[in-house]
């Protein structure tokens, strides 16, 4: 039995008083591609955050390559080989495109050839190559996504966690990114991908994990997902839809993309 790159063991997670994950167990084996799908507010981003140490679990443990890292600072996860591209514009607005990338490449362990990495990033996303010295904060929404993805795609980490992978990307770029993801996976990187575009995600994934209201409701190969695929993206099951109080409790804390 292989040691998984990432294992969440009966993890609960919460934002202050709001609980977001309920007893989630999940494993990603080396070189495996896992798609994480579910409606908004289901807890996909929360899992991604737990996986990269941004959010310490309230109970349960997070193992990276068999080592228990629960409660450690995110940079320990990064050094253990987990690269997380958070959802949205996760770039340093006050640094230039090149500086954003250099920061990541220079801080990576073991040492890397930064110049070669930069070249690779700019061949991957030629648009960024045209914008090397521009402040990341002035890039267009999609360009900022590209920058965030370039950082993790070039690193070829042990596990790549990409949240809302194709959000804000033009179709042609999305297709490119999935092509590169395939290559990265073939080179041995495990993938944990959060995605709204089911067709792309299912085509890539070896395994699909469906989240509903903070609980894993399906975990298996994409073929077995079958009819479920039309319903998994509905926010919660119908019973709680009927009860507005319940829906409120779930959404109460959703701040992603809220007022900035």
């Amino acid at each position, binding site marked *: 039995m292989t040691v998984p790159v990432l294992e969440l063991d009966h993890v609960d997670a919460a*934002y*202050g*008083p*709001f609980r977001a994950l309920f007893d989630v167990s999940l494993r990603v084996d080396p070189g495996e591609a896992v798609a994480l799908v579910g409606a908004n507010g289901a807890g996909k981003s929360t899992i991604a*955050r737990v996986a*990269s*140490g*941004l*959010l310490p679990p309230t109970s349960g443990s997070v193992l990276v390559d068999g080592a228990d890292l629960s409660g450690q*600072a*995110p*940079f320990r996860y*990064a*050094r253990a080989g987990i*690269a*997380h591209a*958070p959802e*949205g*514009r*996760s*770039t*340093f*607005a*006050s*640094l230039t495109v090149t*500086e954003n990338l*250099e*920061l*990541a490449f*220079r*801080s*990576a*362990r073991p040492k890397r050839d930064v110049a070669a990495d930069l070249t690779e990033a700019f061949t991957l996303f030629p648009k960024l190559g045209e914008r090397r010295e521009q402040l990341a*904060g002035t890039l267009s929404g999609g360009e900022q996504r590209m920058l965030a993805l370039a*950082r993790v795609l070039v690193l070829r980490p042990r596990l790549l966690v990409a949240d809302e992978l194709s959000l804000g990307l033009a179709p042609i770029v999305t297709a490119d990114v999935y092509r590169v993801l395939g290559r990265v996976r073939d080179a041995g990187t495990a993938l944990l991908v959060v995605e709204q575009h089911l067709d792309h995600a299912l085509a890539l994934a070896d395994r699909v994990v469906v989240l509903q209201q903070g609980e894993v409701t399906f975990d298996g190969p994409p073929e077995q997902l079958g009819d479920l695929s039309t319903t998994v993206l509905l926010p919660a099951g119908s019973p709680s839809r009927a009860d*507005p*109080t319940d*829906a*409120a*409790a779930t*959404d*109460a*804390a959703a*701040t*992603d*993309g*809220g*007022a*900035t």
Partner: protein
Amino acid sequence: MQLLEYAIRGIPTGCVFALLAVGLVLTYKTSGVFNLAYAGQAYVSAIVYYELRKELEWPLVAAGVVSILVVAPLIGLLLERVLFRYLRSAGSMAKLVTSLGLLIAIPEIAKLVFGSETRKNPPPLWWVRRTDEWLWPEGATFVLDAGQVATIVSTLVVVVGLVILFRSTNLGLRMRAVVESPRLAELSGVDSERVSMAAWMLSSVLAGLAGVLIAPLFASLNPFDLFTLLVAALAATVFGGLSSIPLTFVGGILLGVLQAVLAGTLPTDSVLTNGLRPSLPFVVLFLLLLFRPGLRSTRELVDPLATVDAPPPPPVVRARPQWVATSARVFGVVVSLVALLVSWFALDQYWLGLAISGLVLSVTMMSLIVVVGMGGMLSLCQAALAAIGAFALAQVVEASGAPVVVGLVVGILVAAAVGALLAVPVVRLDGVYLALATLAFALMFQSIFVPLSWVSGGAVPISVPRPVIGPLDLSDDRYFLVFVVVCVIATALVVIRLREGTTGRFLQALQTSDVAAASIGIDGPRARVVAFTIAAGIAGFGGGLAAIDLGQASYEASFPYIIGLVWVALLVSAGARSIQAAVLSGLFFFLFPALLDKLFAFPGNWVETNPDAPSWVASIADTIQPTWAQSVAFILFGIGAITYAKHPEGSIEAQTTASVNALVRRVEARNAAREPARVGGPGTGGTTP
């Protein structure tokens, strides 16, 4: 030729400016804090150096190493660990207010720790005081003294070092990244905690170096000299756009040169130019802020990973049930009446006078509610605007013999007009820049206008009589108290109405998003100018009342800009939007030091009246100095501002909100228990986790 010589003379001063300014820019770049307390940090190192060199007679190197390379970084580390660590994702305004609090508290803490005696002739960080004709050989018209050489050399070393740090080291890049988002940096494998500690230690070392180098420029060691010098150096930081180290350096040198050239060429016989010379740096700062391109577009950096934090608890239960609103109002009226009656009958002259001054101050505090709390503009010149109101009142009453109440109205109008004139250019700036522009204005006002006789009446303050309204002669403090209470209530009503009305709503919208507000048709600059103007008018009102209260319009007694900074720190930490906070912090400002005074004087007095007390009691009583009162009060004021980090809505506001919410919840729970069939909607469900 003459000019060139003046210019060269300016270079050492320019280096002093540059050294301070570069340190500030470094702190801002690597911690996001526009650190006014930098002067305080510099002061502490300078004291330590003084004590080690002069009192303990340590060798120079040892004293220098300990004060600059040991004590200073430890202070930086301390500040980072206990304070700024928790402020990483706070806005620049919260950070600025915190540094304001530190600026107030640090020198007082230093006084408590090292004693408050004057420290004359601070020792130089150099072996000899002068090296005659060391650099300027034959027929030199002036020489550089060793301290100046040390300053120039250190400044150059620091500037070159910092340029290298940011241009070509990994650490510089990491520091800039960590400021913006510590967590995003961690995702790249950066240990943010360590980087952030390093940043604070480094900037603190620079502060210490500056303090020790600069101290000998003054006859004695004094935190406010250092602070004023720091404010003078701000022009250089703005010249560098708060980011470029080389530009900041150039700005500092230019400022020093400009000052020297003007000093040599301006006529010396006019009051205006005499006032202009010392205030030149503030004028330059103000003009730079208004005209330097590229300052307006600084958008506040938002941590892209801020969404990982749980949202703050809902600020206020918006739709408070009617009964809460009514009972709060009734409660407020009852408390005020009781307080009024107690003051009327039970307070002696001394305490009654203090209470009145406190209430008068609360009017000025309300002007801060409008400009800071509602408008989101951190104005540091409300004290100056209050002074303008007071001066206008005094001048009108003296010149025309008009009734004092008329003078009061004139004061309001003049202050509002000045406020409007100031607001038009200033409101385009945001955050830190606006605070700096208003600070520059306050200093310009203090050094250029206050000495003029058509403004303040000159050296002797103009006296202001207490008005007589109908049968009531307000020179009786008790009638004056009632008059002041009426004024406070009237101001409070206006402020509340504005806050809840369209004006307040527009300003609230503008606070978070200018573009979004514009997209629905709100004219941002106009709304801000209006808010600033109203606030200026209210400040003028408060200033006028203060003059009536004191019997004269005295700048020194009522409105120095430093006192204005304390007011801001106090109000913002109590609750920048709350009327209670304004009234309580006004009262607090006057009553608290007086209470402490009594408290600290008590042991000594007690020992005096009980001569046969045991000797250990007497010795304890001896060590407790009544002079501590002022220090302790200021430290607490400062610490108050620091707690702003925890409760951005203000401690008093937080308290009230929490207790009202708890009350509402309890009552609702009881009601719900009575009628369990009640259907909850998201509106009610959302506020309770």
